[in-house]
Protein backbone atom coordinates (compact mmCIF):
# COMPACT_ATOMS: atom_id res chain seq x y z
CA UNK A 1 0.00 0.00 0.00
CA UNK A 2 2.93 2.32 0.65
CA UNK A 3 4.61 1.77 -2.73
CA UNK A 4 4.52 5.12 -4.51
CA UNK A 5 5.26 7.28 -1.49
CA UNK A 6 8.98 7.61 -2.22
CA UNK A 7 8.71 11.18 -3.50
CA UNK A 8 6.66 12.45 -0.56
CA UNK A 9 9.01 10.58 1.78
CA UNK A 10 12.28 12.06 0.50
CA UNK A 11 10.68 15.52 0.47
CA UNK A 12 9.79 15.06 4.14
CA UNK A 13 6.13 15.53 3.24
CA UNK A 14 4.59 12.43 4.83
CA UNK A 15 2.64 12.81 8.05
CA UNK A 16 4.45 11.41 11.09
CA UNK A 17 2.57 8.10 11.20
CA UNK A 18 2.83 7.64 7.45
CA UNK A 19 6.58 8.22 7.53
CA UNK A 20 6.95 5.55 10.24
CA UNK A 21 4.94 3.08 8.19
CA UNK A 22 6.88 3.90 5.07
CA UNK A 23 10.20 3.33 6.82
CA UNK A 24 8.98 -0.12 7.88
CA UNK A 25 7.81 -0.72 4.33
CA UNK A 26 11.29 0.15 3.04
CA UNK A 27 12.76 -2.65 5.14
CA UNK A 28 10.72 -5.11 3.12
CA UNK A 29 10.63 -3.52 -0.33
CA UNK A 30 13.91 -3.37 -2.32
CA UNK A 31 12.19 -1.63 -5.24
CA UNK A 32 11.13 1.27 -3.03
CA UNK A 33 14.59 1.43 -1.47
CA UNK A 34 16.06 1.90 -4.95
CA UNK A 35 13.50 4.52 -5.76
CA UNK A 36 14.22 6.40 -2.54
CA UNK A 37 17.97 6.30 -3.22
CA UNK A 38 17.45 7.75 -6.70
CA UNK A 39 15.17 10.47 -5.42
CA UNK A 40 17.52 11.33 -2.57
CA UNK A 41 20.06 12.35 -5.20
CA UNK A 42 17.49 14.87 -6.33
CA UNK A 43 16.80 16.27 -2.85
CA UNK A 44 20.54 16.41 -2.11
CA UNK A 45 20.99 18.48 -5.27
CA UNK A 46 17.93 20.59 -4.41
CA UNK A 47 19.44 21.55 -1.09
CA UNK A 48 22.53 22.78 -2.96
CA UNK A 49 20.48 24.60 -5.57
CA UNK A 50 19.53 27.50 -3.31
CA UNK A 51 21.29 30.89 -3.52
CA UNK A 52 24.65 30.56 -1.77
CA UNK A 53 25.59 33.06 0.91
CA UNK A 54 28.80 33.80 2.70
CA UNK A 55 28.68 32.68 6.32
CA UNK A 56 27.71 35.59 8.58
CA UNK A 57 30.69 36.82 10.55
CA UNK A 58 30.74 35.39 14.02
CA UNK A 59 28.91 32.14 13.25
CA UNK A 60 32.12 30.22 12.61
CA UNK A 61 33.75 31.57 15.75
CA UNK A 62 30.70 30.84 17.91
CA UNK A 63 30.37 27.31 16.59
CA UNK A 64 34.03 26.46 17.07
CA UNK A 65 33.97 27.93 20.56
CA UNK A 66 30.91 25.89 21.44
CA UNK A 67 32.67 22.57 20.90
CA UNK A 68 35.57 23.30 23.20
CA UNK A 69 35.04 22.26 26.78
CA UNK A 70 36.03 25.17 28.96
CA UNK A 71 36.57 26.15 32.52
CA UNK A 72 33.72 26.39 34.97
CA UNK A 73 31.20 29.09 34.42
CA UNK A 74 28.85 30.95 36.67
CA UNK A 75 25.92 31.57 34.37
CA UNK A 76 23.51 28.73 33.70
CA UNK A 77 22.99 27.15 30.33
CA UNK A 78 19.62 28.40 29.24
CA UNK A 79 17.89 25.58 27.48
CA UNK A 80 15.24 26.58 24.97
CA UNK A 81 12.67 24.30 23.47
CA UNK A 82 13.24 23.44 19.84
CA UNK A 83 10.57 20.91 19.16
CA UNK A 84 7.82 19.08 20.94
CA UNK A 85 6.39 15.75 19.89
CA UNK A 86 3.29 14.78 21.79
CA UNK A 87 2.06 11.22 21.99
CA UNK A 88 -1.34 10.48 23.48
CA UNK A 89 -0.17 9.44 26.91
CA UNK A 90 3.15 11.20 27.05
CA UNK A 91 4.31 14.71 27.09
CA UNK A 92 7.59 14.71 25.26
CA UNK A 93 9.49 17.92 25.29
CA UNK A 94 12.75 17.93 23.46
CA UNK A 95 14.83 20.84 24.50
CA UNK A 96 18.00 22.06 23.04
CA UNK A 97 20.73 24.12 24.56
CA UNK A 98 21.34 27.66 23.56
CA UNK A 99 24.76 29.08 24.19
CA UNK A 100 24.86 32.00 26.56
CA UNK A 101 28.53 32.36 27.23
CA UNK A 102 31.95 31.43 25.97
CA UNK A 103 31.70 27.78 26.99
CA UNK A 104 29.59 25.30 25.15
CA UNK A 105 27.69 22.94 27.45
CA UNK A 106 24.52 21.61 25.90
CA UNK A 107 21.63 19.77 27.45
CA UNK A 108 18.70 17.90 26.02
CA UNK A 109 15.69 16.77 28.03
CA UNK A 110 13.15 14.14 27.10
CA UNK A 111 10.16 13.81 29.35
CA UNK A 112 7.86 10.83 29.28
CA UNK A 113 5.43 9.89 32.03
CA UNK A 114 7.23 9.66 35.34
CA UNK A 115 10.76 10.03 34.08
CA UNK A 116 12.99 12.41 32.24
CA UNK A 117 16.14 11.63 30.30
CA UNK A 118 18.71 14.36 30.58
CA UNK A 119 21.54 14.31 28.03
CA UNK A 120 24.40 16.60 28.93
CA UNK A 121 27.39 17.36 26.75
CA UNK A 122 30.50 19.49 27.17
CA UNK A 123 29.86 20.25 30.81
CA UNK A 124 33.01 20.73 32.89
CA UNK A 125 33.65 18.15 35.63
CA UNK A 126 32.46 19.15 39.09
CA UNK A 127 35.20 20.04 41.57
CA UNK A 128 36.80 17.08 43.38
CA UNK A 129 34.46 15.66 46.02
CA UNK A 130 31.44 17.25 44.40
CA UNK A 131 28.68 16.03 42.06
CA UNK A 132 25.93 17.46 39.91
CA UNK A 133 22.41 17.16 41.25
CA UNK A 134 19.14 17.41 39.33
CA UNK A 135 16.20 19.41 40.74
CA UNK A 136 12.59 19.84 39.72
CA UNK A 137 11.17 23.31 40.06
CA UNK A 138 7.45 24.02 40.27
CA UNK A 139 5.90 27.47 40.37
CA UNK A 140 5.98 29.09 43.83
CA UNK A 141 7.98 26.27 45.39
CA UNK A 142 11.59 25.61 46.25
CA UNK A 143 13.39 23.26 43.85
CA UNK A 144 12.74 19.64 44.89
CA UNK A 145 15.71 17.24 44.99
CA UNK A 146 15.42 14.19 42.73
CA UNK A 147 18.13 11.89 43.96
CA UNK A 148 19.65 12.04 40.48
CA UNK A 149 23.33 12.71 41.10
CA UNK A 150 25.89 12.50 38.34
CA UNK A 151 29.38 13.27 37.15
CA UNK A 152 30.45 13.76 33.57
CA UNK A 153 33.04 11.75 31.65
CA UNK A 154 36.30 13.16 30.33
CA UNK A 155 34.48 14.62 27.33
CA UNK A 156 31.99 16.37 29.61
CA UNK A 157 29.13 14.00 28.74
CA UNK A 158 26.51 12.32 30.93
CA UNK A 159 23.17 10.62 30.31
CA UNK A 160 20.98 10.90 33.37
CA UNK A 161 17.60 9.35 34.12
CA UNK A 162 15.45 11.40 36.47
CA UNK A 163 12.60 9.51 38.09
CA UNK A 164 9.67 11.09 39.83
CA UNK A 165 6.40 12.87 39.23
CA UNK A 166 7.05 15.45 36.53
CA UNK A 167 3.59 16.92 36.25
CA UNK A 168 3.55 20.62 37.06
CA UNK A 169 7.32 20.87 36.79
CA UNK A 170 8.27 24.12 35.16
CA UNK A 171 12.02 23.76 35.02
CA UNK A 172 14.64 21.09 35.48
CA UNK A 173 17.74 22.47 37.15
CA UNK A 174 21.23 21.11 37.64
CA UNK A 175 23.52 22.42 40.36
CA UNK A 176 26.89 21.39 41.71
CA UNK A 177 26.66 19.95 45.23
CA UNK A 178 28.85 18.15 47.77
CA UNK A 179 29.17 14.39 47.13
CA UNK A 180 26.00 12.67 48.31
CA UNK A 181 23.84 15.57 47.18
CA UNK A 182 21.99 18.25 49.11
CA UNK A 183 18.40 18.75 50.20
CA UNK A 184 18.33 22.32 48.98
CA UNK A 185 20.49 23.75 46.21
CA UNK A 186 23.69 25.28 47.53
CA UNK A 187 24.99 26.75 44.27
CA UNK A 188 23.67 28.50 41.21
CA UNK A 189 22.31 26.19 38.53
CA UNK A 190 24.60 25.27 35.65
CA UNK A 191 21.65 24.06 33.57
CA UNK A 192 18.11 25.42 33.44
CA UNK A 193 15.73 23.46 31.23
CA UNK A 194 12.12 24.62 30.91
CA UNK A 195 9.77 21.69 30.37
CA UNK A 196 7.05 23.24 28.29
Amino acid at each position, binding site marked *: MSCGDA*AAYVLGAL*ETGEAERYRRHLDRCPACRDEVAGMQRVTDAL*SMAVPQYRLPSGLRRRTLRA*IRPQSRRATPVRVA*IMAAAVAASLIVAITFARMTGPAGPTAQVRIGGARAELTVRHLPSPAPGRVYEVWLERPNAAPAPTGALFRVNAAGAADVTVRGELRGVREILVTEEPAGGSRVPTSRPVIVAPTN
Partner: protein
Amino acid sequence: MFRAPFSFRAAQLRALTDEALMERIDDADAQAFEVIFDRHGGAAFSLAYRMCGRRSAAEDIVQETFLSLWRRGGRYERARGSVRSWVLGAVQNKAIDSFRHQAATAGRDVSDDQALEELAAPNLTDGEADRRAEASQIRAALGHLPTDQRRVIELAYFGGFTHVEIADMLELPAGTVKGRMRLGLIKLRLSLGDLRSAAGGVR
Protein backbone atom coordinates in the same frame (compact mmCIF):
# COMPACT_ATOMS: atom_id res chain seq x y z
CA MET B 1 39.73 33.68 -1.32
CA PHE B 2 43.10 32.14 -0.60
CA ARG B 3 43.39 30.84 2.94
CA ALA B 4 46.92 30.74 4.28
CA PRO B 5 47.51 27.55 6.27
CA PHE B 6 48.20 28.51 9.86
CA SER B 7 50.16 25.39 10.60
CA PHE B 8 51.53 22.34 8.91
CA ARG B 9 48.98 20.16 10.67
CA ALA B 10 46.11 22.37 9.55
CA ALA B 11 47.36 22.15 5.99
CA GLN B 12 47.53 18.36 6.28
CA LEU B 13 43.99 18.22 7.62
CA ARG B 14 42.73 20.36 4.78
CA ALA B 15 44.07 17.79 2.35
CA LEU B 16 42.00 14.98 3.89
CA THR B 17 38.67 13.68 2.63
CA ASP B 18 35.52 14.36 4.62
CA GLU B 19 35.36 10.72 5.64
CA ALA B 20 38.90 10.77 7.03
CA LEU B 21 38.11 13.98 8.90
CA MET B 22 34.99 12.43 10.40
CA GLU B 23 37.12 9.66 11.87
CA ARG B 24 39.25 12.30 13.58
CA ILE B 25 36.16 14.10 14.80
CA ASP B 26 35.16 10.82 16.37
CA ASP B 27 38.34 11.18 18.45
CA ALA B 28 37.32 14.73 19.40
CA ASP B 29 39.78 16.44 17.03
CA ALA B 30 38.63 20.07 17.07
CA GLN B 31 40.87 21.07 14.18
CA ALA B 32 39.34 18.40 11.96
CA PHE B 33 35.92 19.74 12.94
CA GLU B 34 37.05 23.20 11.87
CA VAL B 35 37.94 21.91 8.40
CA ILE B 36 34.57 20.19 8.06
CA PHE B 37 32.81 23.35 9.19
CA ASP B 38 34.67 25.43 6.60
CA ARG B 39 33.79 22.98 3.84
CA HIS B 40 30.09 22.68 4.58
CA GLY B 41 29.11 25.63 6.77
CA GLY B 42 28.33 27.92 3.85
CA ALA B 43 26.05 25.44 2.11
CA ALA B 44 24.36 24.66 5.44
CA PHE B 45 23.76 28.33 6.15
CA SER B 46 22.46 28.98 2.64
CA LEU B 47 19.93 26.17 2.90
CA ALA B 48 18.85 27.19 6.40
CA TYR B 49 18.44 30.77 5.23
CA ARG B 50 16.42 29.69 2.19
CA MET B 51 14.12 27.75 4.48
CA CYS B 52 13.78 30.21 7.39
CA GLY B 53 14.19 33.55 5.67
CA ARG B 54 15.70 34.85 8.87
CA ARG B 55 19.38 35.14 9.50
CA SER B 56 19.29 34.56 13.26
CA ALA B 57 17.16 31.42 12.96
CA ALA B 58 19.39 30.14 10.16
CA GLU B 59 22.47 30.70 12.30
CA ASP B 60 20.96 28.77 15.21
CA ILE B 61 20.14 25.87 12.92
CA VAL B 62 23.65 25.76 11.48
CA GLN B 63 25.23 25.85 14.91
CA GLU B 64 22.98 23.08 16.20
CA THR B 65 23.65 20.97 13.12
CA PHE B 66 27.40 21.15 13.53
CA LEU B 67 27.26 20.61 17.28
CA SER B 68 25.23 17.51 16.63
CA LEU B 69 27.79 16.38 14.05
CA TRP B 70 30.52 16.94 16.64
CA ARG B 71 28.67 14.87 19.22
CA ARG B 72 27.90 12.07 16.78
CA GLY B 73 31.44 11.97 15.47
CA GLY B 74 31.96 9.12 13.02
CA ARG B 75 28.49 7.80 13.77
CA TYR B 76 26.86 10.11 11.24
CA GLU B 77 24.83 8.08 8.81
CA ARG B 78 27.30 6.90 6.22
CA ALA B 79 24.49 5.02 4.55
CA ARG B 80 22.96 8.36 3.66
CA GLY B 81 25.99 9.18 1.54
CA SER B 82 28.37 12.06 1.87
CA VAL B 83 29.00 14.27 4.86
CA ARG B 84 27.51 17.12 2.82
CA SER B 85 24.26 15.15 2.41
CA TRP B 86 24.16 14.41 6.10
CA VAL B 87 24.74 18.04 7.03
CA LEU B 88 22.11 19.38 4.63
CA GLY B 89 19.64 16.68 5.67
CA ALA B 90 20.16 17.67 9.31
CA VAL B 91 19.67 21.36 8.46
CA GLN B 92 16.46 20.51 6.67
CA ASN B 93 15.13 18.46 9.59
CA LYS B 94 15.99 21.10 12.15
CA ALA B 95 14.42 23.85 10.07
CA ILE B 96 11.22 21.83 9.73
CA ASP B 97 11.20 21.08 13.47
CA SER B 98 11.48 24.76 14.20
CA PHE B 99 8.65 25.59 11.73
CA ARG B 100 6.38 23.03 13.34
CA HIS B 101 7.23 24.31 16.77
CA GLN B 102 6.59 27.91 15.71
CA ALA B 103 3.35 26.93 14.01
CA ALA B 104 2.23 25.48 17.33
CA THR B 105 3.08 28.68 19.15
CA ALA B 106 3.27 31.96 17.33
CA GLY B 107 3.11 31.39 13.61
CA ARG B 108 6.00 31.72 11.24
CA ASP B 109 7.99 34.86 10.86
CA VAL B 110 9.46 35.04 7.40
CA SER B 111 10.81 38.55 7.42
CA ASP B 112 14.30 39.06 6.12
CA ASP B 113 16.04 40.88 8.90
CA GLN B 114 19.53 41.44 7.62
CA ALA B 115 21.25 41.82 4.31
CA LEU B 116 23.62 39.05 3.39
CA GLU B 117 26.44 38.82 0.97
CA GLU B 118 25.59 36.46 -1.84
CA LEU B 119 28.46 34.45 -3.21
CA ALA B 120 29.09 35.07 -6.86
CA ALA B 121 31.80 32.58 -7.66
CA PRO B 122 32.89 30.43 -4.75
CA ASN B 123 36.23 28.68 -5.04
CA LEU B 124 35.65 25.04 -5.76
CA THR B 125 37.31 21.77 -4.96
CA ASP B 126 36.69 18.93 -7.43
CA GLY B 127 33.97 17.33 -5.31
CA GLU B 128 32.44 20.74 -4.79
CA ALA B 129 32.44 21.42 -8.54
CA ASP B 130 30.52 18.17 -9.18
CA ARG B 131 27.98 19.08 -6.54
CA ARG B 132 27.60 22.59 -7.92
CA ALA B 133 27.10 21.18 -11.39
CA GLU B 134 24.32 18.93 -10.09
CA ALA B 135 22.81 21.83 -8.22
CA SER B 136 22.74 24.08 -11.25
CA GLN B 137 21.34 21.25 -13.34
CA ILE B 138 18.55 20.82 -10.79
CA ARG B 139 17.93 24.54 -10.68
CA ALA B 140 17.47 24.59 -14.44
CA ALA B 141 15.30 21.46 -14.39
CA LEU B 142 13.17 22.91 -11.61
CA GLY B 143 12.59 25.95 -13.78
CA HIS B 144 11.30 23.70 -16.56
CA LEU B 145 8.85 21.77 -14.39
CA PRO B 146 5.16 22.54 -14.69
CA THR B 147 4.34 25.13 -12.02
CA ASP B 148 1.96 22.84 -10.13
CA GLN B 149 4.71 20.23 -9.70
CA ARG B 150 7.39 22.72 -8.78
CA ARG B 151 5.13 24.36 -6.25
CA VAL B 152 4.39 21.21 -4.24
CA ILE B 153 8.07 20.23 -4.25
CA GLU B 154 9.16 23.63 -2.97
CA LEU B 155 6.41 23.82 -0.36
CA ALA B 156 7.40 20.41 0.96
CA TYR B 157 11.16 20.58 0.76
CA PHE B 158 11.86 24.21 1.60
CA GLY B 159 8.64 25.04 3.40
CA GLY B 160 8.43 21.92 5.55
CA PHE B 161 4.74 21.34 4.83
CA THR B 162 3.25 17.85 4.69
CA HIS B 163 1.26 16.67 1.68
CA VAL B 164 -1.93 17.01 3.74
CA GLU B 165 -1.14 20.62 4.62
CA ILE B 166 -0.28 21.38 1.01
CA ALA B 167 -3.52 19.82 -0.21
CA ASP B 168 -5.42 22.04 2.26
CA MET B 169 -3.49 25.09 1.23
CA LEU B 170 -3.96 24.59 -2.50
CA GLU B 171 -7.46 23.09 -2.14
CA LEU B 172 -6.49 19.90 -3.92
CA PRO B 173 -7.93 16.43 -3.43
CA ALA B 174 -5.93 14.02 -1.27
CA GLY B 175 -3.51 12.05 -3.40
CA THR B 176 -3.03 14.75 -5.99
CA VAL B 177 -0.20 16.37 -4.11
CA LYS B 178 1.70 13.10 -3.75
CA GLY B 179 1.17 12.45 -7.45
CA ARG B 180 2.59 15.83 -8.43
CA MET B 181 5.57 15.35 -6.14
CA ARG B 182 6.25 12.01 -7.74
CA LEU B 183 6.00 13.25 -11.32
CA GLY B 184 8.16 16.26 -10.53
CA LEU B 185 10.89 14.30 -8.77
CA ILE B 186 11.03 11.71 -11.53
CA LYS B 187 11.66 14.46 -14.06
CA LEU B 188 14.29 16.06 -11.87
CA ARG B 189 15.98 12.70 -11.42
CA LEU B 190 16.12 12.23 -15.17
CA SER B 191 17.82 15.58 -15.53
CA LEU B 192 20.55 14.44 -13.13
CA GLY B 193 20.92 11.18 -15.02
CA ASP B 194 21.73 13.21 -18.11
CA LEU B 195 24.39 15.12 -16.25
CA ARG B 196 25.97 11.96 -14.85
CA SER B 197 26.31 10.35 -18.25
CA ALA B 198 27.59 13.56 -19.81
CA ALA B 199 30.23 13.86 -17.10
CA GLY B 200 31.21 10.24 -17.71
CA GLY B 201 31.82 10.97 -21.38
CA VAL B 202 28.87 8.93 -22.65
CA ARG B 203 27.70 10.25 -25.96
